[in-house]
Structures are given as C-alpha cells and as structure tokens.
C-alpha cells in the first residue's frame, strides 16, 4: 500500500473543495475569501475573456430556502446599479446544485489597507463621501447593508470606491415587508428577532442587541460613523467639526443620528469645502479662522495691499 504525502493530500483537498464550474462558462482561478455562508472565488469568464468574482454557497445541505436566499441576495445587488456598488453579471447553478453569482472583480485595496498607506485626511474624507453616496443610493432603493466596515469597501486602481458584501443586506419594500439575505431566517424568510448580524465594532447598538425589527437606514449611518472614526483615527489635524460629524453619525439613540446617508454625505462635502457643518455649531473665533483658512490667498493679497499702503505712506513722508 502506497501512502500519499501531506503535500499531495492537501492538493487533493483543495481540488475537491474547489467549486465545479465545468458546466458553466467560467474557469476557476483561485479562492479569494470564505464567509459563513459562501465562498468567493476568482474565475475567468471564457466567453467575455475577463476575470470575475464568483460567490458560491459552501453549505453541503442545499435547501430550497438557501437557494432562494442566494438568488435574492444576487437580486438585491443587481437592483443597485450605481458606480459605488459592485455589479452582478450573472446568476447560475453548478452541477452539484449550488447557486452561484458572478460579480465584477475589483482590483485595488480594501479601505483599511488604503488607510494604512499614509493617505491625506482630505483624500480619506473624499473616499468616505463616495461610500456615503453609494449607501444613500442603496437606501433610496430600500436596501440596508447592515455590515458596513472598512473590509467591505474597496478602493479600485483608479481611485473608484465600491461597497461590497451585500450578503446580510436587508430589503425594505414598499409594503414595508422586510427581507434579509443573511444566514438566519424565520419561515417567512425574515431574520429571526434577537439574531445579531454585522461586525462588532461597526454595528449600531440596536443591531448589537439583535433588534432586527428596529433596524433601518440609521443602522447603516451608525456603521458609516464608525468607518469615519476609523479613517480619522491617528490623523494629526482632525477638526472639531469632523469629530462632531462622527459623534452625530454614531449617536447611541438612532433619533439623534443623521436621518439619511445623503445628509451625512452633504456634511462631509461642507467639511471639505470649509463650510459650516450641520453637526457642529462653531463660535465666532472658529468661524473667522475657518473663513481665513478657506480664503487664505485673498487674505494674503489684502494684507500685501495694506503693507504696500503702509510702505507708501512712510516713503511719501520722507
């Protein structure tokens, strides 16, 4: 009897765990990541000759409920056609019956990796504003992400910002019924009350308490505040206005948070333009200092003019 080496055994294990794309137009390239419910692989689309990211269910027991959930997750993302949201290209079934969906393969860095690259505060805020805009778009289409964190935000090679992993997103439709695409469901397809979904440091207090029925857009706004707080961490010159925006977004009571991601985005835009923000009431000194900072060149010109005037007065007296 011949024994297999560990190396060969590991290779066999990997091959067996690889999704079988043989009946599809995709060729497996490598595994990109693994979550509680699915595995994300890099694959080549042979027809269009491009790389795509494919999410496949990794659960061995494929029930009808799981299949529907996966399809609905793809549908949730597909309805969000926005430059800041990773697009879904295709949905299909593997020979073993597992559902998969193909998405754009985003090349670049995750927001946490991007932030580690000594990026200026201004650039951080610009990227954050793009995240807010993408989330605002999702909210306008009745979708709540519920797991916003730097690891789920990608900065592409050309600076584009993409919000990923809508796997635990919640869809609030017009009749005010809710649907979640996460792993824990009631028979109706809704997440069971008391279930905690999200990531510890980025989830709102109501989310951490498992109050699923209480979750609305403001849960995402809390997470956005936590992302902003992460981006501002260790930055040398964080203004009181920026801190106030973070505090307002991360208010414990959701009634005290921004009412929409667009409002948060607008405050970030005002901060970037050195305009007064809604989250912070500045005093006269701060207002003057902000105005001088914003109009530095004009102030310098007027000062140069006054200096020149003083110079002329003194020279004409001689």
């Amino acid at each position: 009897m011949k024994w297999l080496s560990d190396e060969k055994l590991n290779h066999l294990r990997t091959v067996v765990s690889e999704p079988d794309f043989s009946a599809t137009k995709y060729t497996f390239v490598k595994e990109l990541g693994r979550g509680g419910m699915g595995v994300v692989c890099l694959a080549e689309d042979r027809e269009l000759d491009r790389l795509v990211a494919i999410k496949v269910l990794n659960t061995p027991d494929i029930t009808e409920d799981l299949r529907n959930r996966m399809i609905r997750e793809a549908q949730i993302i597909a309805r969000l056609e926005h430059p800041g949201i990773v697009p879904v290209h295709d949905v299909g079934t593997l020979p073993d019956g597992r559902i998969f969906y193909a998405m754009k393969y985003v090349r670049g860095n995750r927001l946490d990796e991007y932030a580690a690259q000594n990026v200026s505060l201004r650039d951080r805020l610009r990227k954050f504003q793009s995240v807010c805009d993408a989330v605002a778009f999702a909210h306008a289409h009745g979708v709540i992400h519920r797991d916003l964190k730097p690891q789920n935000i990608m900065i592409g090679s050309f600076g584009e910002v993409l919000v990923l992993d809508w796997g635990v997103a919640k869809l609030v439709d017009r009749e005010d019924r809710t649907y979640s695409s996460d792993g824990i469901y009631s028979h109706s397809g809704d997440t069971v009350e008391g279930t905690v979904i999200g990531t510890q440091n980025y989830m709102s207090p109501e989310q951490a308490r498992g109050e699923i029925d209480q979750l609305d857009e403001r849960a995402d706004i809390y997470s956005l505040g936590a992302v902003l707080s992460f981006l501002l961490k260790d930055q040398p010159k964080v203004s009181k206005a920026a801190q106030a925006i973070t505090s307002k977004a991360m208010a414990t009571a959701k009634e005290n948070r921004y009412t929409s991601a667009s409002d948060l985005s607008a405050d970030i835009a005002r901060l970037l333009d050195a305009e007064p923000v809604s989250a912070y009431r500045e005093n006269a000194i701060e207002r003057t200092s902000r105005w001088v900072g914003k109009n530095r060149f004009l102030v310098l010109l007027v000062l140069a003019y006054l200096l020149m005037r003083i110079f002329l007065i003194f020279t004409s007296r001689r």
Partner: protein
Amino acid sequence: MSKPLIGVILGAVLGAIDGLTAWFTPAVRDQLFGIVFGSTIKGIIAGVAIGFFAKKFHSLPIGILFGVIVGAILAWLVAFMQGGYYFQIILPGTLVGLIVGFATQKYGTPAEATSQ
C-alpha cells in the same frame, strides 16, 4: 452674488480705502473728498469691467492678468490727470485690480449655461 456685483463692491471698498490713504499725505489732505470720490469711482469702473470679464471667461490666471491690466491703466489715467504721484497711484491701483481679478474669478455665481 453675481461676479460683476462682487467686482463693484470690492472695487468700491478698496478704491475708497485707496483714496482715504491720501490723508497721510499732508500736501493733498485738503483735496481728500475729491480723491476718495475719484478713487471710489475708479474702483467701481475697474470692478464692473473685471466682474463682467470674469462672468465671460473662467480662468484664474487670465482673470488676474486682466485685473492687473485694467487696474494699472485706470491708475495711470488718474496719475496722468494728477500730473504726478505715478508710483503712489499706479502701484496700489494695480494691486486693487489684482485682488478684484482674483476675487471675481474665485467667488460669485458663474454665468448660466444657455441652450438653444
């Protein structure tokens, strides 16, 4: 606020300040009112011209250059009519033109795009 209006306000204020500094020159102090009036009018004319230019052309360097030229020409005319004080009049007048040129390019509502 429109760009020409910014030009008029800034030109008038800086022109008036420009004229008021004549108080420090005892030889012309008795003509202060006329100097302030003339200087303010000069500032308004410069402001209108620079403001309308900024409304039409959106370029910071060209706007500043236009402001400097208008400021210098108007100041030279005033100095020519005064028959002296060229340096004391042209230098501040040029700088006022520069400031108004910068401000009108940087601030104020740009001209609305028209469709046919």
